[in-house]
């Protein structure tokens, strides 16, 4: 069974020498340079490429994502950051500070600066953080689990946690589909959720933050029930 592991990276703030203003390391995206056809993996070799974004920590929550090389796997939205690429040697899950040779790409039109606007960190933290516990039901499982959506920074992390929680699963993340698979019997599970309006939705259609806000409960639906006939085309990026 193939497992993916996400390396925890220590995100630090550092002042960027190129301009007057100060920037903070925004996020680090690990991109495996080799992709298996079934699942994305990160192991300690071969070396992987990391896309390091520098911007303000306040625009987006920090995200660790897995994505295809050459592209930014995140939805950018109104991102005002610029990115650098660097080579990383990943070894396991411990924190390691990055040795980056930072190559600067062209900055976006507006950069955000530290401490502006002058909103206190306390207020920023209070406004966005909190517990968002939702129930997770798996078709056929005897009891439900609960996860705190605030702990995750993106869909991949969430799915990984399902992997851990329901040990029979493996993330089956091929190109545009986000599914979980029980390798023992080949059953696929489609992650769905119930939103504020009570509608059953497919996980992954909307930006992560919007999902966190609107998700009331999660259901991992057996693919036979979800209908793998191609009625719905996934539009996950």
């Amino acid at each position, binding site marked *: 069974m193939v497992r993916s592991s996400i390396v925890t990276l220590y995100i630090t703030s550092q002042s960027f020498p190129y301009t007057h203003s100060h920037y903070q390391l925004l996020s680090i995206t690990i991109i495996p340079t080799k992709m298996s056809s079934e699942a994305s993996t990160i192991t300690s070799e071969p070396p992987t490429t990391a896309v390091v974004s520098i911007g303000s920590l306040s625009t987006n929550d920090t995200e660790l994502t897995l994505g295809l090389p050459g592209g930014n796997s995140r939805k950018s939205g109104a991102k005002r950051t610029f990115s650098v690429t660097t080579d990383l040697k990943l070894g396991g899950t411990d924190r390691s500070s990055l040795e980056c040779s930072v190559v600067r790409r062209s900055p976006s039109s507006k950069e955000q600066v530290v401490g502006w606007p002058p*909103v206190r960190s306390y207020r920023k933290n209070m406004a966005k953080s909190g517990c968002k516990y939702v129930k997770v039901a798996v078709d056929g499982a005897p009891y439900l689990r609960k996860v705190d959506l605030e702990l995750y920074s993106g869909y991949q992390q969430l799915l990984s946690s399902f992997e851990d929680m329901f040990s029979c699963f493996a993330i089956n993340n091929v190109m545009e589909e986000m599914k979980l698979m029980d390798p023992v019997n080949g059953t696929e599970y489609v992650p769905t959720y119930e939103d504020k309006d009570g509608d059953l939705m497919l996980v992954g259609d909307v930006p992560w933050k919007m999902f966190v806000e609107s998700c009331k409960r999660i259901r991992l639906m057996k693919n036979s029930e979800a209908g793998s006939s191609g009625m719905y085309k996934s539009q996950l990026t």
Partner: protein
Amino acid sequence: MLQVFEARLFELVTGEIGSELVAGRIVMAISFREEVLEHSWYAIEWWCQRRIFIGNCYVVSLAMKIRRFPEVRSVELKWKPHFADFNLVPDGWGGYFYPWICEMARVYPLLEEIKLKRMVVTDECLELISKSFKNFKVLVLSSCEGFSTDGLAAIAANCRHCCMLFASWNLRELDLRESEVEDLSGHWLSHFPDSCTSLQSLNMSCLASEVNFSALQRLIARSPNLKTLRLNRAVPLEKLSTLLHRAPQLVELGTGAYSAEIRPNVYSNLAEAFSRCKELMGLSGFWDVVPSYLPAIYSVCSRLTSLNLSYATIQSPDVTKIVTQCPNLQSLSVLDYIEDAGLHALSLSCKDLRELRVFPSDPFVADANVSLTEQGLVAVSEGCLKLQSVLYFCRQMSNAALTTIAKNRPNLNCFRLCILEPRAPDYLTLEPLDNGFGAIVDHCKQLQRLSLSGLLTDLVFEYIGNRAKKLEMLSIAFAGDSDMGLHHVLSGCDSLRKLEIRDCPFGDKALLDNVSKLETMRSLWMSSCSVSLGACKRLSQKMPRLNVEVIDEQGDLDSRSDNSPVEKLYVYRTVAGPRLDMPSFIRNMDQNPTCRRYSLEKLFSE
């Protein structure tokens, strides 16, 4: 054990003394003789030798306090620069409370109150507090950091310890306003012993984790004097009515999360519980609001003088509905979801309003997500005749609006405007906002605090220097064209105490031309400006009674040329010489620190 700075003097700010010091008050005003120290700010007043307020760090000496104030009952310390609130002051800068508490524990046995702002307070400090003062009553930690809930447990538990040894130890106030606490668990609250019945004020709103609810309930039930209770977000709404039933005497309440599944019995319990709180005058909290539950507070609205909805992500109609039912409102904090319409309604309903704070709901997005403009503030300035204090975040402003506001409300004493986009011009004329702010300082003659934003040239500083004679605190960001701007301020603002500047083209000349002004001020902060390292050194040479600290995290200060610009500069007056707890990325520019140490005895023997 700790470094005792040689003491000289410290600054006592008048006006901090409350009415309880009426009986037996001894006021001594002591001025130092001219030949010792030339400046009038060295005048000191002792009030019963009981209260000490130190408005800036490192000016004071512990030794001096030890010798002079054994009767101290109350200590209030403010430490880090204000811009620390916005992450401009690096970690490790300083402000450690530990050396202080070690000395205080030793020599102030009668200490009853400790109030700290922007300090680093560790669990060891809290433990020391809990063990050292038999009459300890009040602990306020405002925007502090470095402690965890374990430390709080020590404070809570000390009642137990002290009750065994002394007759009376009763905590009256524990206020953690906006501190960053390492939240290890909610169990700390359970450490309050059953014998603790004296609590009057508990503010734990900054804590994330759940406290033991039954412990909280019991604590509240046995605290008949509890007047202020600010819960944290983790206290669920369904349980709020239970708490309110046990504390109908509350004057100030901060709710927890204001959301629950919609159930009629929860609502009716809540509404009924609120209606029994006949003394309630202040409300806050309101995280995660479910609007359907808001009408539960309507019964108290008519009495409210203070309302903080700045965490409530509710839309304009819901906010408006509440505020328009609060005719006695004096202080309101909201998010910009209130929009212009809500502010207009506010201006018609709340004629007693003194203070308005409007915070941005989405500060990092350029495009407006809400319909809040300068018009909202104009409306409030027209309708609320008693308006004195404004903090307003918005995305557009005009000179015309500012002028109107100024003419409407000449009684303003605090005006802080933050236009989210740096250097944003008057959106109507595309001109700088010099004239608008000029009108503010022209009409509002009592203005004590001003924060500028938007596109501003040196002209606005000329206006400020000429007109803002009562101004004590000025905050400037992304403004000005040249050194003249800073020069106008330093040479013109007679009452200036605190000046904080970021990202402005102010440099050496203005600084060095106004060195003596800096000694009349409490502090000056400049970051990302055009001040050179050489100028900092010269400043320090010229003014031995100033600590000129250069903060530079790039780590090679010693090898930099004198022409290189400094990242951050913090200047403050002191008689204690360079502080001894600076981290490696901060340098004091004083070349000869030892020469400046006067001896305490000499100073006070005259």
